[in-house]
């Protein structure tokens, strides 16, 4: 096949606009193309319009204006011809959970019209490819998240499609399976198949051949990721050896002239300078070293959005410093174990968290981090072991313990049918605020988070960023000593995430203790220490830098958090196998 045929244009988007109701358009005049033989990353935070764009390409949805043509057919005229030639994996697992792996494959083979004589060979090839051979008899509902995605991929590939549309295939999948999936998809592009891989993880964008970056329905960038990162080339620095507390230094640096963005990366800071500026890094102290660092996609995205927020947190400024009564840890877990029937969801989890520390539980979905988390906020009774929050035993005194903590789960914690004002009022009441103090705190939250004109809107209709702020406001209104954050920023845009961590960092400096669960590697870098949870057990505990150092090899001199994560899980698996 010639290079030209290989890179044929498979999808052309021309001024595509799609609206739902009166809200601002889900897609606003998006134009671009998708080529064969490439992985095109459809990148953007939740609510950016990724799913809508993919559905438009399947012909299951029609644009309000503009046109989508796929493989030479227009979706408005020939959806059937398109659907016969593409493979589509929706965001939600689209297969039948009560059918077995083989039954699902048979069903899709029939639906896609795979000739009988080709089946045995195709099934064999795909099952080998996806490593599902051992599980053909298992019900799809009983597969792990990663295996489900692989099965979905296999079904989408039954009749070799020319275009493969994958809507957030990496969500709910552990990093190892995510890498496997990626490798599989990369193999497909060698045969000339065009792949669309949508994702909210900006780091995934870097490895794509081409990128369509969406934000709030607008196309921000189309092209090679390297062209995107080139815009911040030479402006990214890794600042190490800072004097003083890294979080305070970061906050000050963010307000320094010429600095547009910064995040914590283990013990160092990652700083992006503005165009044409020479930052002095004064707040970092004399001993600090600012070394140029390779730019990342996220740096460029933040730059494109006009830079991150400053370092000030009015939320923390209004907070009274929490003096420790003694040196006892604020959160303690001793051999926490939870069994559901014969399944051990958490097995002897032990750690303690000091005042003013951010502690992370990191692990794939279903590893047991949420179970551990729920036991520590007193929502689940441990089968064995003990947990304490602010000195209160969770078995005997869960109510007192809960009074000391603020809980934020971005996905579930708010009442969608209540407005912002009603949610604030409700949570203030739940946490025991009343009278003057309640009014003051609610007023303050409104001011800090700028809810003003949205205050009367139902919170389920809010943009994700605002929901996230509201969730934080509700969790901190009663000035808790400990904050429990469950996947606090998954899917939100990088600006909102930075704002969030600015608040959290500043609160921690006031003595608040934070326990956070995440499967998001960047977020893990904000933690002082991390416990890596896998299959119910803590397989590693240490600071982000320590964990990374542990897995340094000649091949991998400077591992990322994700590399560390994968390497540590593989080590643990090898050990288990040896023991068995």
């Amino acid at each position, binding site marked *: 096949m010639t290079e030209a045929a290989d890179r044929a244009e498979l999808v052309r988007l021309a001024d595509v606009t799609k609206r739902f109701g009166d809200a601002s358009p889900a897609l606003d005049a998006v134009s671009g193309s998708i080529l064969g033989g490439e992985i095109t990353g459809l990148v953007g935070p939740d609510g950016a319009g990724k799913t809508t764009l993919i559905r438009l390409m399947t012909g299951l949805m029609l644009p309000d204006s503009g046109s989508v043509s796929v493989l030479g057919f227009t979706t408005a005229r020939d959806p059937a011809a398109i659907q016969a030639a593409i493979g589509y994996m929706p965001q939600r697992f689209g297969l039948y959970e009560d*059918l077995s792996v083989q039954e699902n494959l048979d069903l899709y083979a029939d639906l896609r019209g795979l000739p009988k004589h080709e089946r045995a060979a195709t099934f064999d090839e795909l099952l080998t490819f996806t490593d599902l051979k051992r599980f053909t008899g298992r019900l799809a509902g009983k597969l792990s998240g990663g295996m489900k995605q692989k099965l979905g991929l296999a079904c989408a590939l039954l009749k070799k499609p020319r275009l493969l549309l994958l809507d957030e295939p990496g969500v709910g999948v552990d990093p190892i399976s995510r890498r496997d999936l990626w490798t599989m998809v990369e193999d497909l592009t060698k045969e000339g198949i065009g792949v669309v891989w949508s994702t909210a993880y900006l780091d995934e964008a870097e490895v794509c051949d081409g990128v369509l970056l969406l934000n709030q329905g607008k196309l921000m960038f189309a092209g090679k990721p390297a062209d995107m990162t080139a815009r911040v080339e030479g402006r990214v620095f890794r600042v190490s050896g800072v004097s003083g507390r890294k979080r305070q230094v970061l906050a000050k640096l963010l307000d320094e002239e010429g600095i547009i963005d910064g995040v914590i990366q283990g013990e160092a800071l990652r700083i992006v300078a503005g165009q044409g500026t020479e930052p002095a890094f004064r707040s970092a102290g004399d001993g600090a070293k600012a070394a140029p660092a390779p730019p990342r996609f996220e740096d460029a995205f933040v730059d494109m959005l006009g830079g991150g927020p400053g370092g000030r947190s009015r939320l923390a400024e209004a907070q009274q410093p929490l003096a420790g009564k003694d040196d006892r840890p604020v959160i303690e877990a001793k051999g926490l174990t939870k069994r559901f029937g014969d399944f051990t969801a958490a097995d002897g989890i032990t750690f303690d968290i000091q005042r003013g520390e951010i502690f992370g539980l990191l692990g794939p979905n279903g590893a047991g981090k949420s179970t551990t988390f729920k036991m520590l906020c007193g929502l689940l009774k441990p089968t064995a072991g003990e947990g304490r929050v602010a000195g209160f035993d969770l078995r005997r005194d869960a109510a007192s313990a809960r009074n000391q903590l603020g809980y934020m789960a971005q996905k579930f914690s708010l009442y969608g049918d209540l407005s912002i004002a009603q949610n604030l009022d409700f949570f203030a009441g739940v946490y025991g605020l009343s009278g003057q103090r309640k009014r003051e705190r609610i007023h303050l939250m409104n001011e800090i988070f700028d809810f003003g004109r949205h205050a009367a809107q139902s919170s389920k209709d809010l943009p994700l960023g605002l929901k996230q702020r509201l969730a934080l406001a509700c969790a901190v209104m009663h000035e808790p000593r400990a904050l429990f954050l469950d996947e606090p920023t998954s899917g939100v845009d990088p600006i909102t995430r930075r704002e969030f961590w600015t608040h959290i960092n500043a609160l921690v400096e006031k003595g608040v203790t934070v326990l956070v669960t995440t499967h998001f590697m960047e977020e893990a870098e904000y933690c002082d220490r991390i416990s890596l949870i896998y299959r119910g057990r803590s397989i590693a505990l240490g600071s982000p830098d320590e964990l990374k150092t542990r897995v340094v090899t000649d091949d991998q001199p400077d591992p990322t958090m994700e590399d560390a994560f994968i390497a540590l899980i593989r080590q643990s698996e090898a050990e288990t196998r040896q023991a068995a």
Partner: protein
Amino acid sequence: MSTSPTSDRIRRFAALVRKESYQAVRDPSTTLIAFVLPLILLFLFGYGVSLDTTRTRVGLVMEETTPLTQSLAASFQASRYFAVATNRDRRVFEEDLVNGRIRGILVIPASFTTDYAAGNHPQVQVIVDGSEPNTANFVQNYAQGAVANWERQRQALMAEGAPAISIEQRFWFNPELTSRYFLVPGSIAIVMTLVGTLLTSLVVAREWERGTMEAMMATPVTAVELLIGKIFPYFLLGLAAMTLCVLLAVFLFGVPFRGSVVALYALSATFLVPALGQGLLISAATKNQFLASQLALITAFLPAFLLSGFLFEINSMPTVIQWITFIVPARYLIPSLQTVFLAGDIWPMFLHSIAVMLTIGAVFFLAAARSTRKRIG
């Protein structure tokens, strides 16, 4: 490329039916709705609910004691519908009636013998609790029946000369007026409504909720294949549930079966057309299991119960409500089924019902097909 469009179509259809059957067999809620719920309903109507009165407690006041009144009293006591307590003073029973210990008071007035001798129509006063109209009606009717019986017997005894006022009732087909005979065939219609409409709307809505519908739609399957493939297994399931009910009705409850099996299946199969069509329409419109179940209950289950003549006479409903009953498919099935069970095959009646049910079904299917375009949002 593929072999031929027709064989592709057949293969896709077969695949959908197979998939749906696997799911139906594996999903406990299917068994629950298709087999357990019908059993519960059938037992409820077979044993629990009875519109017959048996041995209602009444008080009998005899204001005079003559051979004549005593023979009437004996007639009441002999009635299989009453458990009679006797007294001379009605005040004794008044409190019992108010407290619900008895259901009615029968008064043989002091003038009874004289009136009867004078050739007047003998009067028996019946006092009932109007707050329970059904029971009150029964007491009244059965009291009248007992009086009529007594009169007939007197006539036979006296041969001639006595006043001859007798109402002779004869119920055809269900001479004992056993309500179970009516209710059990009727409840079969309810069961098929459950399977056809409720279950179908749930399983289609579930595909929307779980996102499997979206994945299916992005394949070469057409909307019609999708719909027909979806309901075909439930059509068979509905007939299976019906068969189970009929077997129970005949062999357990002893309901007579005087018609033909052909008529039974023809009617039931036709009824499933509007039932399934309605289920499809509901799920296509709601795409949400909770809403679908609510809508199915309100627009299909309750009308089949209340507006079909199953429990309440359509003739005694207000005119507007009577009009509404014309679009309730169960209204056509239930009388036909009752006929199949109790009378036999009356094909003109069945054919009319079948035609109407098919028409209603066609409307539902067209509407469902219109709202199940291969589009999201």
